[in-house]
Structures are given as C-alpha cells and as structure tokens.
C-alpha cells in the first residue's frame, strides 16, 4: 500500500516550498522539503557592478533579513577594499542588526509558533484567551521594524548603511527614546520565554546533530564574527566556509543543500543558544539556566524557545549599544577604500543562521561572488528530523493527519517562512 502526504504550498522565506512524504508498505520512501522558489541567479547579477551597487542588489534577496544580507555584504566588501569603519558606524550597524533580530524572531515566535503549540489556527484566533501575549509580541515586532526603519532609512531595503559607514546617523533624542522603549519591552519578551519554555515538546524524533554559528570577537554571546564555532569544538576562520558548508545540488530544491563532514547540521537561534548560551548575562542568562537542557542538542522544536531568549538578549543589548553610539558626538564621514582590487569573506548571523557573502573585486568592480544562505544549510537536518518523526509515528500507526501536522511543525520550527501558513496542507492517498 502506498501513502503520500503533500503539504503544498508551504510558504517559506522568499517564497514557495512544500513537504512531500511517500510511504510504501509501511516504510518511509521519501521525505522531501521541496524548495519551489523561482531561481534568481543573484550571484551572476552583481558581476561588473561597483561595491555600492552590489550592496543595493544583495539586500534584495530577502525582505525579512534584508539588513543581515546588507551587513554580510558590507563586511565582505570592506575587507576586500581594505576599509576600516569608524566605531560609531560599527555600533550603528550593531543596532540595526538587533532591530532585524527583534522583527524576525518576534514574527516567528508570536505569529507562527505560539498558535502551533497552543492548538490555534492563527495568532488572531488566540486573541480571546491570549490577547496580552499576542499584542505584546506584536509590540516587540513593531519596535524591531522601527529600529530597522530609523537606522536603514526605510522599513525594507533601506540604503543608509553603506560602504564605509552610514549616510546619516541618528540624533541623540531618537536614540534615547529607543533606549527607553527597549527597557519597557523587556518584561514582554521575558514572559514569552516562560510561556514557550514550559511547553512539553515531543521527543520521539530526537537525535544529536552538529550546530554552527559565528564566534563573536569579544568572546560574548553575539551575532557577528570572523570565525565560525562548531559544536564539535572546532573554531574556523570564515574564509574556510566552503570546507564547512559543502554546497551541493539537490533535484527537489532550487536552494542548494549543505553538509559538514558528510553530515547534516543546523544553524540559527538553536545553534547559537547551544554553542554560546552559557555566555549570556542578566535576565537572558537566568532564563537560559532555567530552561536549557540536553534535549536542546537533539530537538529542533527548541528553536522556538531559543528565539524567545534571543528577544530578551536583543532588548538587553540595545541600551548598551546606544550608549556606545552616543559616546561619539560627531558623525564620521564614510571611510574610504585603500585598494580597488581584493577578496573578502563576510559572515553574520541572520535570524535563521550563519550567512556568508564572498566577493572578489578587480579594478573597483565585482569580478565574482558567492553567497551561502542559512535556510540552505539547515535543509538536510530539517529533512532528517522529518524522516525520523514519520518513521517513529508509523510504528505507532499514526494517521495521515498526525503525520502531516508533526512534519509541518518540525519544518516550521526551523522558521522557513513568516507566513501564517498553519492550515495550508493538502492530503492525498494513493
């Protein structure tokens, strides 16, 4: 007997995806997370462009993590051109990056994950019983959007962060207001961690895996670095990213898949929390100590709790980052290139994981580019956990509805999309 379970469309970052599960005579034959997104060939479009033009193209890859793309591109291009940015520019970039994490993590935690775990079709439907939690979550998201708009010049694809620094800096009054707002929102984020941290996640598909994230230069918890920390203890310069990611083609996906030493790995909030969580301080540290346990190393559903703890961390960081911006009264001019030929790799953590941009510049124009996105890196692990879940559930004679819901929940835990696609699953029996 053949069974086929199709989840299509399942929206994800930047577009179209679906889940396809085939079962034959009680055995799992195929578990695919199909990436159906139209191909854009971004790497080929930036060739022959100036570094400034490149940055304007690269950020258009994604509207949700537009600033992570911009930041990774700037880091890579500034290395290639021998540019050292001013400290004020560095702290402004940190602020914009934190804004994006607030926006993206809050969207996933409150609009996608919460309804899943509390058995509601959408966040809107939760309003009757959980009005405070949902509206507080949306306040955090709105604050993230506000920081993105103020630092980058507009809500999405703002061009203000540019090669060598910023076109315009924020005034003191605006920064002080943001500081206050971050303090006021902190208890909301804390509450979300308690709500998610107390959930009892299913364990039948658990298995250890490898986690990767940026290793911050200051040795603290962070989302930027020139080295990559791997959960097996290795710390590798970002220049060696190809050895870590081993991008390869997969026929059911227009996003390339990645393997580390021939095995799948996970990037994103869970990877950061597992690799760096012990370095947290303040409230975020207390929450980590309360809720982290060894199952986080084996179960992707904890990504949701990790994202919530990161919301707390971001809100804790913002006042500190703003103080650092305020230390520099004068706005520095854009730092200039010291050469017009060179190569550079830039890595940052995007909300969904490590993002690599690699450029070769020749005579002031881009000669070659290579980009590796987080979603592609986690795809093999996502499929592995879905397969394990389906295999285990078949042992318990689970019906199609259960198989569908559980595999969707695992896929969604990886935060592949912001869409509230809670009931977009179609089921076919063969």
């Amino acid at each position, binding site marked *: 007997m053949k069974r086929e379970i199709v989840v299509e469309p399942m929206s994800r970052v930047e577009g179209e995806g679906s889940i396809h599960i085939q079962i034959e005579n009680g055995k799992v034959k195929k578990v695919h997370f199909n990436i159906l997104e139209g191909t854009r060939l971004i790497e080929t479009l930036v060739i022959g462009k100036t570094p400034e033009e490149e940055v304007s193209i690269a950020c258009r890859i994604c509207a*949700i993590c537009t600033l992570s793309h911009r930041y990774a591109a700037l880091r890579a291009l500034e290395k290639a051109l021998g540019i050292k940015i001013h400290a004020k520019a560095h702290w402004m970039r940190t602020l914009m990056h934190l804004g994006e994490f607030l926006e993206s993590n809050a969207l996933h935690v409150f609009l996608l994950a919460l309804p899943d775990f509390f058995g509601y*079709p959408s966040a809107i439907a939760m309003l009757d019983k959980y009005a405070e939690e949902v509206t507080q979550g949306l306040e955090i998201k709105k604050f993230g959007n506000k920081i993105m708009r103020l630092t980058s010049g507009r809500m999405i694809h703002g*061009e203000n962060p540019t090669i060598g620094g910023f076109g315009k800096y924020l005034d003191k009054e605006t920064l002080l207001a943001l500081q206050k707002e971050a303090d006021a929102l902190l208890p909301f984020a804390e509450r979300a961690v308690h709500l998610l941290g107390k959930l009892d996640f299913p364990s039948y598909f658990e298995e250890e895996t490898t986690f990767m994230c940026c290793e911050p230069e200051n040795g603290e918890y962070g989302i930027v670095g020139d080295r990559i920390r791997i959960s097996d203890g290795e710390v590798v310069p970002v220049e060696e990213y190809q050895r870590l990611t081993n991008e390869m083609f997969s026929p059911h996906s227009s996003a390339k898949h990645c393997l580390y030493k021939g095995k799948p790995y996970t990037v994103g909030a869970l990877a950061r929390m597992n690799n760096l969580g012990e370095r947290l301080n303040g409230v975020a540290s207390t929450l980590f100590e309360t809720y982290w346990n060894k199952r986080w190393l084996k179960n992707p559903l904890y990504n949701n709790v990790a994202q919530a703890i990161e919301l707390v961390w971001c809100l804790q960081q913002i006042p500190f980052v703003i103080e650092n911006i305020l230390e520099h009264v004068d706005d520095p001019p854009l730092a200039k290139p010291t050469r017009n030929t060179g190569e550079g790799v830039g890595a940052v953590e995007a909300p969904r994981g490590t993002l690599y941009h690699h450029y070769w510049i020749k005579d002031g124009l881009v000669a070659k580019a290579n980009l590796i996105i987080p979603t592609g890196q986690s795809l093999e692990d996502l499929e592995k956990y879905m397969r394990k879940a389906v295999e285990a559930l078949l042992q318990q004679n689970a019906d199609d509805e259960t198989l569908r819901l559980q595999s969707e929940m695992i896929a969604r835990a990886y935060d592949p999309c912001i869409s509230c696609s809670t009931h977009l699953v179609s089921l076919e029996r063969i």
Partner: protein
Amino acid sequence: MDKKEKLNIGLYGFTGCNGDQLVILHSEDQLLDFWKSANIKSFSLAKSDNEEIELDIAFVEGSICNEEQAKHLKEIRSRSKLLIAIGACACYGGIQAMEVSPSWEERFKAVYGENVLEVRTPIPPQPLSAFVKVDFALPGCPIDAKQFFLMFTQLLHGHTPHLPDYPVCAECRWKENDCLLLKGIFCIGPVVAGGCGAVCPSHGLPCVGCWGPVVEGNVDSQWNLLKEKGYSLEAIKRRLSIHSGKGLSEWFKKMAGAVSNET
C-alpha cells in the same frame, strides 16, 4: 457606499523577496482599515483561510520565473476584473530580470550546472505584463505604503489611480536637499521615477533607481544634465539597469531626443 457590496480582493506573490506584501503587513496603523474596507479573499502571506474565487481586484507581487507560475498568473487574471502589479519585480521583473550578459541560459548553467530541477520548469524572469494584461503598475523596491494605500483608496471609490510623473529630483527639491550632483556624487535621480520621497538623497546617498526609469516630458534635459556632468552612457545605463529589469530597453526605445540618440 453602504448599498454597494464590498469589493473582493486578493493579494498574491511570485518570485521576489515578499517585500511588497510585507510593506502592507508592517503598516499596523492602516492594516485594520484595509482589512475592513474590502473582502480580503486571498492573502496567503497573512492568512490561511483563502478562497480562490472571482475577484474585483488582484494585487500581484513578484516576477514570473517558471512555467508553473505563468500558468497560475493566467488563472488569477482569468477571474479578476482588475490586475494590479505591485513592486519592481511585478512591474519590471526586478533585479533578477536585470539586463546583463551573458544570457540567462548561460548564467543558469553556471549556477546549477547540467543538473535538472525536478519540481519546476525555470524560465528567464519576466514582469507580469509578459504574460497577462496588467491594468495598473505600482513601482518601487519595495513599494511605498502611502502610495499603495492611496492607490487602493482610489480604486475602492472607482477612480483611476494616478502615479507621480516626476523624477526623484523633484522630491529632492521639495525636501530642500543639497544636490548630490553638485557635490560631484554620481546620482541618477534625474532619470528615476519619484514616489519614494527621495529617500536615499535625503540620507546624503545617491539614488539607486529602485522606482525604475521616469516617463515624463522633460526627461531629455534631465538626461543631458547627467551627460553634462561627465557621466558616461555606460555608467548611467549600468546604474539604471539594476532595478529597471525589462523596463530598461523599453524605456530607451520610448524616449525621444537625447536618450534615443545614445542607443
């Protein structure tokens, strides 16, 4: 309005970054009114109980990058009284439709090799108008929320929407920005459609051209302004090509005088 039934509308997304639909979703202050003023029948980015029925207006974001999308777009067109393209991808094909060499086929091979995608049949990225009649096109990468809600309100009341027909330069003057060209910074604002509020020049940065080329009577002199400043046709074309997609060559064809003499 009270006797008249609310319009049935749908919002759809093809290949791009979802940024245009997100601009609408991020507009918390207008979103509730937007939701109440029409029957939102389909908006899969925001809700799951979608109905694919006859529509008064379909708003479509994104470019068409495979045969399956082209088929879906035609299906949406067949049941919609009006079809509105929103954003640079839908209007011009977006950055992925940028006019570059080598050809799309050669670049596709460079990225995917001889591998064959099982799930979709890729085609060179195209704007919506390559496949269906587009009744109105709202440019921008991403669209501007104010422009969208203004257009939406005009459509609700049965008016023909009207877009600004002036370049970014005009908005810069209204904002009393210092002209970047006078400071020796290469800015293509003179030949780019306004509507963004001159956001980049207001940050002291040159226009990136994300609203596409301006179509307006005085574009000859604007073009000549750039030429007089010493910028080469090659540089202007390269900068303008980034966000103009398939609109670039069409624009060059359409423009009279100075611009067309260059091609």
